[in-house]
């Protein structure tokens, strides 16, 4: 999967490149709009991460010209200004997703993954990790053959984590997916709920599955 990052802020471009490379993507970078546009027209990228404020050509112009040239690459816009007007403009010009600075890298990674996954959805009936098994149809989870007594929200939380193994999920994303709190709410609440889930899923067993990534969120994986 090839991703082009068009971003003039050197540090931002650097950490995006590093983070996304380590997540297994092939990255090219451009530091102004024109250079980025040329690159995007020459090479078939799966995704273009496009900053709005760019020298030479701004993000809107790059996006418009890309769509004129009928490039089918997915585009994820990054902006420092979050206004309805900008959002509408972005979607009208054909952006696929939109992220406001400052953003969590885990959030960006999650969006990138979901954008690139969009084309190949895979239906799942059971999720397995180590000795944990989640039956999505019957809404039950077992560990080492033992049934886990979970509340409906705890089941949702566990499913969310387990379906995206190895991916750091931010507290905001968790609050939004499980409790429908789609804003930066009091995220300590997520910690409390994860702690309760752990007491049922991890504490009685030797292998821990739910791990805290300090300052970022939670990750679900079998190795420590």
């Amino acid at each position, binding site marked *: 999967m090839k991703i082009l990052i068009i971003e003039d802020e050197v540090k931002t471009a650097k950490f995006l490149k590093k983070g996304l490379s380590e997540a297994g993507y092939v990255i090219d970078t451009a530091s102004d709009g024109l250079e980025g546009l040329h690159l995007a027209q020459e090479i078939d990228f799966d995704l273009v991460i496009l900053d709005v404020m760019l020298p030479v050509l701004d993000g809107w112009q790059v996006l418009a010209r890309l769509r004129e040239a009928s490039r089918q690459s997915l585009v994820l816009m990054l902006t420092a200004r979050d206004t309805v007007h900008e959002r509408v403009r972005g979607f009208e010009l054909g952006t696929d997703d939109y992220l406001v600075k400052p953003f969590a890298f885990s959030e960006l990674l999650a969006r990138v993954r979901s954008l690139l996954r969009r084309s190949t959805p895979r239906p799942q009936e059971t999720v397995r990790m180590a000795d944990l098994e989640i039956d999505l149809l019957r809404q039950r989870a077992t560990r080492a053959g033992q049934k886990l007594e979970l509340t409906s929200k705890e089941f949702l939380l566990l499913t969310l984590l387990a379906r995206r193994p190895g991916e750091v999920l931010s507290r905001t994303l968790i609050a939004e997916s499980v409790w429908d*709190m789609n804003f930066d709410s009091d995220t300590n609440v997520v910690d409390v*709920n994860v702690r309760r889930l752990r007491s049922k899923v991890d504490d009685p067993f030797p292998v821990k599955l739910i791990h805290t990534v300090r300052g970022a969120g939670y990750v679900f994986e079998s190795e420590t």
Partner: protein
Amino acid sequence: MSLNPKPSPAGALRLRRTLAFRLTAAYSLAGLLMVILATASLYLVLRTELDRSTEMFLADKLHVLGSMLRERPDDEDGLREEIELESAARRYQQFYIRLLDEHGVPIMTTPGMAEQLDLAQLASRTRGRSGRSIAMAGRHGQPFRVTSATVAVGTPPTRSDTVQIAIDVAQEEELLARYRLWFWGILLATSVLFPVVGHRIARHGIRPVEEIAATARRITSTNLRERIAPEGYPSELALLAGTFNEMLERLEESFERISRFTADIAHDLRTPVNNIRGEAEVALARARTGDEYRDVLESSLEEAVRLSELIGDLLFLARAESPLTEWHREKVNIGELLITVRDYYEASAADAGISLVVNDGAEPLSAELDRSLMLRAVSNLVSNAIVHTPPGGTVTLGASNEDAAIQIEVSDTGDGIPTEALPRVFDRFFRVDPSRSQTSGGTGLGLAIVQSILTLHGGSAEIASQLGRGTCVTLRMPAVATR
């Protein structure tokens, strides 16, 4: 506001726009109009009266001659007395009479009549006319009023004669001419006098306005203490000055609020930035183990997250205040909304030993609102309530309706808020206990956000509290979108 004449067209235009000019023009026009009306109507009355007295004189003369001819047709002396002598005795308003027989042959004429009047013209112009007199010019240009009548002679009548009467009205015409001259004189004098007096009155009337303007000009953001002293102003302008002073009061308060807000932002930004900087500096001062670096990075990340949250909240507030903000209204079941919030906080409340109860009344309530915004408002309140309620306490979420308004109540059995702090709790960055800012988390913007969300919904947020007994926040909003 100056009325000094300026030669340039732009100056003239500016002059025309001044209030003093307009008032002066209005006074002058109204005054002149009244003077014109008064003098013109007096003139008309005078002219009518003069005409009437001339007519009456002529009618009287005709009547006298008529009755003499009818009753005493042979009294030639009497007729001569009437026709020839009486007129000659007058110096003003001289009149001339001619008596003609059936064939138009003069019987008797006032002496000098032929010198004054063209008799042929007189005959032709008055022939066949009776009643009102007509105007006619004499040989020397003097104005005359002339009339004629056919008179029956003798009883019973034996023949009918014609009487022609002309009266010199030069006196009346002169009087009217003098009157007209006065009329123009008065008009000229008042058209000079009215603007001058009007301008003085206008200037006097608007002087307080100029003073208010001068005060306003002196005011800048650093000099908001200036006020207008409205003593001696007429009540309307005293009201204006009072309103102006109130506006200044509010402006001053807003400015103070903003500068306090800016200082608060700076403080709240400084703390996390300081932590990141200090920790990084210390970490780099010498070689560390991987775990130590990891610890510093993780701590920096936490601080960065705090900064992001603060920025997010500030942006939210700024956006909520913008009149262009669009948001999504939908029909929301209030009970379900409260249950969503309860589900989210249930675990935290249980951890803190607090019971979290939803008490949403008998009938389901719904309102048109932005679900995610209202969710955020209620969440902020519940989060506060849980933090400030000791174990064993209760946090209650309630909803009720009153006419077309919906109320959501979040009450707790917690510490309460001191009365003197209550008016400020919705202010940005206001914390009842400043030292708790770090430990209790949050950005200090929670209640400010609640209030701006309610303002967006056309509603309000109110708080009531008793120290040691608990706090109750009531959110009130119209059930149906009004915008």
